[in-house]
């Protein structure tokens, strides 16, 4: 190892395959990022332009939000990668536990206030 210290890091400690994987990963990240910006722009248009009915706009941006959420988790937070079963399990548990609670709260809170 020590004789390779003079070489740059990428050559000394990364194999060809690892380097390719890293580049691919970078490309994927940029594409997802661009796609998510696009979704955000869509959301802004849906709300900002007067022509679109709120009855359509609200479910539409909620849908966009869900898509964004999933993309965030899988691409930016690496849940898609292998060896991520535990984080996956935890995120899933959190979602499964939180969703009914939030839905129940939304449904119930209007009923009784005090």
């Amino acid at each position, binding site marked *: 190892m020590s004789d390779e210290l003079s070489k740059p890091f990428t050559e000394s400690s990364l194999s060809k395959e690892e380097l390719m994987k890293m580049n691919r990963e970078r490309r994927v990240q940029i594409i997802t990022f661009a796609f998510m910006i696009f979704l955000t722009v869509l959301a802004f248009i849906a709300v900002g332009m007067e022509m679109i009915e709120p009855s359509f706009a609200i479910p539409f941006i909620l849908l966009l939000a869900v898509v964004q959420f999933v993309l965030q988790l899988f691409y930016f937070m690496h849940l898609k990668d292998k060896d991520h079963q*535990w984080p996956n399990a*935890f995120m899933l*548990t*959190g979602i*499964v*536990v*939180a969703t*009914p*609670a939030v839905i*129940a*709260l939304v449904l*119930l*809170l209007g*009923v*009784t*206030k*005090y």
Partner: protein
Amino acid sequence: MATATASMNNNKSVLWDWLTTVDHKKLAVLYLIAGTLFFVKAGVMALFMRIQLMSAENDFLTGQTFNEFITMHGTIMLFLAATPLIFAFMNFVIPLQIGARDVAFPFVNALGFWIFFFGGLLVSVSWFFGGAPDAGWTAYVPLSSGEYADLGLDFYVLGLQISGIGTLVSAINFIVTIINMRAPGMTMMRMPLFCWTGLVTSILIVFAFTPLAAGLALLMLDRIFGGQFFVPDSGGNAVLWQHIFWIFGHPEVYILVLPAFGIISEVIPAFSKKRLFGYTAMVFATLIIAFLSFMVWVHHMFTVGIGPITNSVFAIATMAIGIPTGIKIFNWLFTMWGGKLTFNTAMLCASSFVPTFVLGGVTGVMLAMVPIDYLYHDTYFVVAHFHYIVVGGIVLGLLAGTYYWYPKMFGHKLNEKLGILMFWLFYIGFHLTFFIQHILGLIGMPRRVFTYLDGQGMETMNLVSTIGAFLMGAGVVVLVINIVYSAFTSERVAVRDPWDARTLEWSTTTPVPEYNFAQTPQVRSLDPWFYEKIHGDGLMKSAEPMDEIHMPNGSILPFMIGLGLFIWGFGMIMLNMENPIMPPAIVIGVGFVVTFGSMLVRSIKEDHGYHIPLDKVKKIEKEVS
């Protein structure tokens, strides 16, 4: 490396050693001491409340003091006594049971303890600043709002917020430890049940303490900064607090009782000389209970008036929890069935846990039926129900754990004669105190009242209840005497495994060296230590050659961060004081600087720990074995 080794040979004072320790075994002892102190404090309050309720129209305590006692008793018992006592055993036992040298983040472990401790201290000092919180441990708005409650509630809000942070970071640490630090061969389905329940409890803490933190933050905004989240007149919603609190509150009871289940599941097999019956079923029952515990919170709010459909849904969900719990009960019974039973104190506590817990569970299912709950709600029936769970369940579990793990923790056993005396005093006292409260509730005695009228037929039963409470108190006194007495008279335990038990913690030498395992053990089956005793040569196979051992350095920073948060929280409370001695902003500033300054030091100062050299490891190993 040689220079780093020097740091362990320092001869700093004992006090400094305990303040800076990051060793999970020492932190366990700290948790044990802190938890016991809080337990005794809340227990004395309970005795005072029982004296007040001993006879009709008694005036031993005023109504206000009684309210403060009730609130502090409940709050302390749940957050500051039961939780740290459970953490004490989790800290000591889990790394040993999974064959690890320490938890994943020793520094964070110490941080969790000190933050919890200073948070608890903040709640406790409320006595000296105009009185303790008095809105019940549930702190329902509007009782707890700025309109009705004094400074005490600010202490409640900020103290619990801080101690909750400590509990949260410890829980995250346990999760990482159990997932990442298991010895080779220790698959998830070979983990002892106490590790499983510890893991599930930690997960519950992560999911349940976060809503609590959010709720407390909202209440703080309301009280200190003039928010209106819970003020209906300004568009807020008072019921929202109840929802948030119980979304946290119901999982909280399982956070406490699951580790007690775990302890029982360790003690019963050890003294039945049989493996745990239905291990897999036990694991899945634990997981199902944990999941369901998030789906039932409205059963605390049946009488709020949310509506019949909602109430029915949550009633059914609540009753469903009875099924996995029943599985557990039967598994414990079948473990004992046909076993070679030894009834020492640990086993007495563990086996009597089972019927007591069933009683608490049965009344729980009764309370889950909505029409009946309209009768029972806010009567002593409820008090009896949850004390069968918390005292008959959690406290008995903790007592069993104390007697069971004491030789590993402190190097000698507790005296058995005194132990058995303690058990009977406590057990009889417990049933005297709380069984009769079922009946009191049924004849209509409301809970959280500081007195009752003559001639309603409640005097005798309340007197019996008070006598029982004093018997329990006597039991605890005997326990304390036992601890002191055994420290002087008990012979040292020199063997690894004084109980002839089954799990990995008993394969370590007594006392446990600071690195736990000189060589990481190789696990070959469920109950690995038992397996090696029967199929191997009676010692664990090792998974690595003997080598020098990397250890973390102690640090005072966790203590400083806790202290900083204490000062900071106190400064926030001063914002609500009539005439604080100094401007609150200064105190807040000092707290902020101490907290984040310590974090900064931690971030920029490199600390790679030290190594115990090989010959020293060999020397220690020779000494202890």
